[in-house]
């Protein structure tokens, strides 16, 4: 019953023309409506032209569908130059007859209208262009320019209606671009003609950081994501970032990976973290977050696993140098190409840009472990909410690829250390807190596990020592003054050692005593026994003697009686 329903649904599903734009085909479940017209609208500089150009170029190069670009604003040369900055080589495509560009210049000052006319000239040009390359795709960028060049609006409107119908009949997948008006989607109300699919591009600048966003306003006959999706225009082209995270359905494994700190592994049920989980290391400044992160990265490299380290505070060289001081040689891994350290200031990009460029680097490098140190620095370029959203996207992206992630998070001194600045702790599978244990006039580092999903873990605070051989964890002491660490711990350890020695001595002494006493008593026992034995012998002799005497008396008495012939 259900499967039958599903089948008809699939049969009637709208055919799509894939755009090849990374992310976009995911949110629209396949691309733009095939053989129909889509409207791409947005303010100036929002990337409409680039979106449209990418649609044509990908169509020509990846999907075997040649295209025609009709520009009403930019000349072919300008388009070629602009597209080159996106890594698109238009002249090659034109030479290969996969792309046809036509620049339509509408200059009002040159044109005078006299009597009735139609736009058949435009139709002929389109049809000529389409036939020349056998186009299946078309872009009109932006046809609204006609309204500024021609004054007879009623003719224009009628002709546009005819044009869109004509394109539909020709079964050409078309993008028309429009400039967003003050109160309407497009200045001239193009949305009135294009009813199948409307895409809105937006470009906002908040706190001097720009973010681009895309939204599918309408998609007749198709499901589509309705959120605003951030996008990026870079030398790799136009890319949309879908929130794939809505589903929490990544495969989870049982495999565990070492933290690089044996004692910490022991605290984590003896085996370390789960592969593909998110580990959060939070702490105030100078508590050793980077060191924990680097040890983790080092351990991954040691296993021969590719690791990517995003350093938002330090340069790559600085990380390498600092880690050398605790005996971690990261350079050997970078040299072998197992480790890649990317040092960059968060402020160079907006959040989306960061997220995407991180994703692309990850895609290129294909690591199994990713470290971001610290994620909290990203809050310089976005609101808490945005950072949180961005990080959850990044986490989902990585988890879907079973990549183990370690984030460090800087907590501000004075605030509750268990509140991470970007509120990502709920995302974390394992959360370690590094803290300063301040007592007795010194600061010492402590580490504890706040949570670690799906494994038994220690509840102890351990002292965290940075030695020139890496990190060592030692037990801390809890006394009436609180947790003892550092010299207080050392003093306490000395005390305990002395006590132990004293006890050991006492035990030895007692043992000796026991032995002595035993020997003494055993001696006495032997002596007494021999005394007893000799006394016994003497007594036995006397008994025998007395018995003999008695027998003699009896015998004599009997003999005497016989001789007297006594009457018995």
């Amino acid at each position, binding site marked *: 019953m259900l499967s039958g329903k599903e089948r008809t649904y699939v049969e009637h599903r709208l055919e799509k023309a894939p755009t090849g734009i990374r992310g976009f085909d995911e949110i629209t479940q396949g691309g733009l409506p095939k053989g129909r017209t889509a409207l791409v609208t947005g303010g100036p500089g929002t990337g409409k032209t680039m979106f449209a150009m990418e649609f044509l170029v990908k169509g020509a190069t990846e999907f075997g569908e040649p295209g025609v670009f009709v520009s009403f604003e930019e000349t072919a040369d300008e388009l070629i130059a602009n597209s080159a900055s996106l890594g698109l080589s238009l002249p090659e495509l034109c030479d290969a007859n996969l792309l046809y560009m036509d620049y339509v210049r509408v200059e009002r000052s040159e044109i005078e209208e006299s009597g009735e*006319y139609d736009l058949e*000239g435009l139709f*002929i040009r389109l049809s000529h*262009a389409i036939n020349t390359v056998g186009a299946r795709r078309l872009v009109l960028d932006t046809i609204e320019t006609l309204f500024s060049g021609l004054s007879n609006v009623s003719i224009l409107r009628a002709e546009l209606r005819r044009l869109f119908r004509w394109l539909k009949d020709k079964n050409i997948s078309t993008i028309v671009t429009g400039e967003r008006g003050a109160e309407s989607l497009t200045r001239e109300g193009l949305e009135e003609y294009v009813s199948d699919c409307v895409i809105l591009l937006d470009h906002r600048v908040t706190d001097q950081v720009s973010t681009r966003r895309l939204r599918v306003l309408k998609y007749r006959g198709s499901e589509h994501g309705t959120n605003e999706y951030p996008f990026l225009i870079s030398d790799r082209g136009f890319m949309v970032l879908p929130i794939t995270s809505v589903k929490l359905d990544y495969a989870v494994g049982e495999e565990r990976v070492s933290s690089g700190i044996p004692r910490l592994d022991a605290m984590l049920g003896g085996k370390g973290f789960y592969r593909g989980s998110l580990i959060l290391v939070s702490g105030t400044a100078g508590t050793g977050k980077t060191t924990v992160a680097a040890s983790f990265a080092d351990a991954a490299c040691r296993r021969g696993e590719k690791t990517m380290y995003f350093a938002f505070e330090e340069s790559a060289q600085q990380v390498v140098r600092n880690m050398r001081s605790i005996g971690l040689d990261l350079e050997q891994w970078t040299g072998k190409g197992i480790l890649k350290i990317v040092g960059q200031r968060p402020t160079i990009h907006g959040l989306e840009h960061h997220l995407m460029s991180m994703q692309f680097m990850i895609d290129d490098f294909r690591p199994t472990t990713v470290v971001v140190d610290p994620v909290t620095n990203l809050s310089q370029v976005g609101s808490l909410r945005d950072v949180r959203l961005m990080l959850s996207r990044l986490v989902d992206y990585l988890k879907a690829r079973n990549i183990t992630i370690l984030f460090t998070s800087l907590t501000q001194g004075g605030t509750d250390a268990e509140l991470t600045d970007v509120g990502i702790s709920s995302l974390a599978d394992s959360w370690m807190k590094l803290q300063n244990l301040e007592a007795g006039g010194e600061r010492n580092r402590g580490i504890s596990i706040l949570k670690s999903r799906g494994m038994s873990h220690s509840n102890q605070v351990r002292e965290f020592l940075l030695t020139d051989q890496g990190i060592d964890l030692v037990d801390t002491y809890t006394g009436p003054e609180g947790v003892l660490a550092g010299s207080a711990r050392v003093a306490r350890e000395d005390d305990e050692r002395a006590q132990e020695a004293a006890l050991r001595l006492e035990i030895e002494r007692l043992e000796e005593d026991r032995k002595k006493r035993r020997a003494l008593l055993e001696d006495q026992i032997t002596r007494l026994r021999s005394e007893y034995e000799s006394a016994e012998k003497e007594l036995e002799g006397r008994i025998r003697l007395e018995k003999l005497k008695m027998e003699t008396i009896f015998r004599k008495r009997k003999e005497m009686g016989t001789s007297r012939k006594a009457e018995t």
Partner: protein
Amino acid sequence: MAKKKDSEIATEAFEKVLRGGQEQRYVLRLYVTGSTPKSARAIRNLRRICEEHLKGKYELEVVDIYQQPELAQEADIIATPTLVKKLPLPLRKFIGDLSDADQVIKGMNITPKS
């Protein structure tokens, strides 16, 4: 406004002197789409204007862009019919069936014959 007109008249007079009294030639090209009613009307209207006002000093070429679509791109034609005045400069385009003769005459800067 009036001043501008004066200056225009002055310039024209000056140019006339420069040309040594020789008449300005008009090079016109009319882009049509086959024999649609609008095309036919435009051809008829233009011929009449030329015969009345530019007799003997114009060249007219009628281009059917159905037959030669590449010429539509070359001349940047979108609307049809379109009349292009190539000479004298500046280049001007008139779109429509040219039913308003006075407007065309004015736009082409032709001194109408009373």
